[in-house]
């Protein structure tokens, strides 16, 4: 929202924009704000770990590899969540796990949106042959069981390198989580693509698009300046809800042996802890599950609130 809009809002309370109105509603939703706070904490933690690693800072809390006690120490005053089989702090692993899991979910979401939104918009706007091809592509992909598709992509991508020298970035080796989020991202754009396509087909016939056409806007301008902003609230909502499913997909991939190997992620922790559970060492499992639980809960509640706030259809009249 630009400044003009804000001013406009003050003068004429009736004509508030979708976004301004939505955000105002959101601010009043206490639970949503608490959720947003929780999400922010997770994101800040991730960002903090990234920065700390970049500058090689030695913070105790992110030294997950350090031995802090004896093996399998139950939770206590010393180690709040206990220790694992090498005497490492489960708390630190859980905190560090945020980096891996959130990175995976974040990039997977971004990739799926970057592919899905333009494709959906283009298909919905142009229809005809382009539409047929895109629809064929996503129908085909959605006919293949999702988990198999991710798995196949992950296996294909694993160990490959991407040559980015032309961009001056050197080569990137696809290992560990890069594979995971690429695989998830490349397979899960289907849902958002379908959603955007449907919405664009609806919007395409609306007056404002006809008007834009009538004063000679180019197709790309109509798509990117008019259509996508109008369906973007769907993208945002879907982003927040997808994030959850991607965090959980990482768990399954870890179980199938395709996750991050050398650093703790929540999926890897659960996978490792399933061996410990029968011994009664419940804390690693619980810590990782709780870490996933809280961010998923927060994202779900926030996503719902966002939908309530932004979806014009659901407003109280």
């Amino acid at each position, binding site marked *: 929202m630009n400044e003009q809009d804000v001013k406009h809002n003050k003068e004429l309370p009736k004509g508030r924009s979708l976004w301004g109105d939505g955000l105002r509603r959101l601010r009043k939703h206490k639970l949503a704000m608490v959720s947003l706070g929780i999400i922010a904490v997770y994101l800040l933690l991730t960002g903090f770990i990234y920065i700390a690693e970049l500058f090689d800072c030695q913070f105790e809390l992110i030294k997950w590899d350090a031995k802090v006690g004896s093996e399998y120490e139950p939770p206590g005053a010393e180690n709040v969540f206990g220790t694992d089989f090498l005497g490492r702090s489960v708390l630190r692993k859980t905190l560090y796990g945020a980096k891996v899991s959130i990175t995976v979910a974040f990039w997977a979401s971004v990739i799926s949106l970057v592919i899905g939104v333009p494709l959906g918009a283009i298909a919905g706007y142009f229809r005809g042959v382009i539409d047929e091809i895109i629809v064929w592509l996503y129908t085909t992909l959605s006919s293949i069981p999702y988990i198999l598709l991710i798995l196949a992509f992950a296996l294909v991508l694993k160990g490959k390198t991407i040559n980015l020298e032309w961009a001056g970035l050197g080569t990137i080796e696809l290992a560990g989580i890069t594979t995971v989020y690429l695989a998830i991202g490349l397979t899960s754009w289907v849902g958002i693509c379908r959603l955007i396509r449907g919405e664009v087909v609806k919007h395409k016939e609306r007056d404002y698009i006809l008007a834009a056409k009538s004063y000679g806007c180019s197709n790309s301008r109509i798509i990117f300046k008019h259509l996508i902003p109008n369906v973007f609230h769907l993208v945002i909502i879907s982003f927040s809800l997808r994030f959850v499913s991607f965090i959980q997909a990482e768990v399954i991939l870890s179980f199938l042996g395709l996750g991050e*190997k050398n650093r703790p992620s929540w999926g890897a922790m659960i*996978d490792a802890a399933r*061996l410990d559970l*029968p*011994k009664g060492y419940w804390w690693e499992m619980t810590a990782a599950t709780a870490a996933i639980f809280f961010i998923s809960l927060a994202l779900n509640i926030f996503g719902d609130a966002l939908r309530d706030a932004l979806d014009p259809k659901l407003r109280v009249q």
Partner: protein
Amino acid sequence: MKFLTILFTTVLVIVAGCKGKASKSDSNEVVLHSALAAKVRGLDPGDIGDTTSSLVASQIFECLYQYHYLKRPYELVPQLAEDMPQVSEDGLTYTIKIKKGVYFADDQCFENGKGRELKATDFVFAWKRIANIKYISKNWWIFDNKIVGLDEFREYTKSCKKAADVDYSRKVEGLAASDDYTLIIKVKKPWPQITYLLAHLPTAPVAKEAVDYYGRDIINHPVGTGPFKLQKWHRGSYIELVKNRSFREEFYPSEGEDADRADGYLTDAGKRLPMIDRILMTIVQEDPPRWFLFMQGKIDASGIPKDNFNEAIDQRGKLTAQMQKRNIHLRIFRDPSTYWLGFNMEDKTLCGNKPLRQAINCAVDKEKYIKLFTNNRGEVAYGFIPPLMKAYDSSIKDKVKTTYNPDKARQLIKEAENIYGGKLPKLTLAMPGTDAVIRQRGEFLKRCFKTVGLNVEIDYMDWPTFQNKIKTKSVQMFMLGWIADYPDAENFLQLFYSKNASPGPNNFNYSNPDFDRIYEQIAVMPDSPERTKLYRKAERIVIEDCPAVFLMHGVAYVLYHDWLYNYKPHAFGYGLSKYRRIDTAKRADYKKLLKTGE
């Protein structure tokens, strides 16, 4: 809602349809319940390459020889053979008499469905079949370049277009049946280990009728001479074997080790085998449920999963009170196994840098490894010959210089850096698996290396990829192990013979002319004190060259319920279910115990 109703009816139909799949046995039958930790691939002995399948198939098939059930050290006794083989003076011809009156189990592939008598030609057929390249057997290594004329037969099969074109009646000079009960084997050079291999399941006789009748489906239809036959095999789920009614007369051994009488292993001496009617083997690949099943008395014997070790065994290595209360028994025995971190001796960084290899050796805390990952069910390895073998050198510990010693490792790294000419590059250790268990091991090793300042990346890969990389020599370091096929250390020595380099079994691509010379010498020597000495000498050459970090030799702990009798662990033997006896009354008591006990 109509739609839901339709669905619901479908379910009922399906559920009803699935019911009662396992054949109901009458209550007087004695059933052995066991669990298999991996899936069974196939029951065709000629093609079996994995232990789980062997475990099942060995109840159905028999070989010429078998290991004595009770005697230690391990000793071969005749099974289908009448006696031990007669060897000619030059050690090149083996004459083996075969028992009369042995019949294949009844099967529809035979005339009238009645099993026919076993003949010497059945062995000839089975072995030619392994040689047949169209059959693509995993077990050709057994006979490769060993028997006169068999390699030529293999050459001949290459020229055949289809498997069906292969003419099995084609003569092979070294494999002949002089009459129905006499088998004559001619070998190219002396082959002292042949008797061990004649006790190895892939050499079991196979009926040509069955092979012709079932074609490629023979993997599902084993027809053998053994004490049991296949009743039902639900792939990936369970296998049910029943007593072979036409099994020849075989009796429980009446002599054994000194302690066997006291341990009750000789109570059944002279009784006719088998002593159970049915075996139900459930495939349970995950550890926790297998353990739960054992504790609930649903399976009769089990190993101890790492994660339940403390539940079963106390600090002193004895059974815990809870186990004793449940009348569970424990047996501990040595595995003929060695585990190591191998080096690819053709790798540029590692090959010319012995101090580096030694440094890695000194960096790994083997005792801690054994404690963490096996609950001390292992012995630290100094060389590769396991303590179970006769050739094991009990003084080897003192002769090895590269035991766990971080300080020494750091020193050696300095030396290694001098040789390398600068800071050491990152090394990569390939791990055979991607699951949590392997990952924990990797994390531990990484930490060991990090402590002494070595930068090692752990690369986890699935088993096929791992094998592929090893076969193509494209790994730097790798974690692997070997379990002896037979109680002769030669089985370990061949792993270091230069001509066996990848894709052969010498994964280290180790090559030392001195070692090769000794190996070639001992390969044709019959067992003798001199040969044992040479074995030890060869082992020390390898240790000195340091092509691997030898981690540990396995020690197995098995638990069994008190209703299971004659459960004596055996390192090489398969097909042992025939010796087991079960007290069904006691088993029933356990259920009561479980109900009242907790």
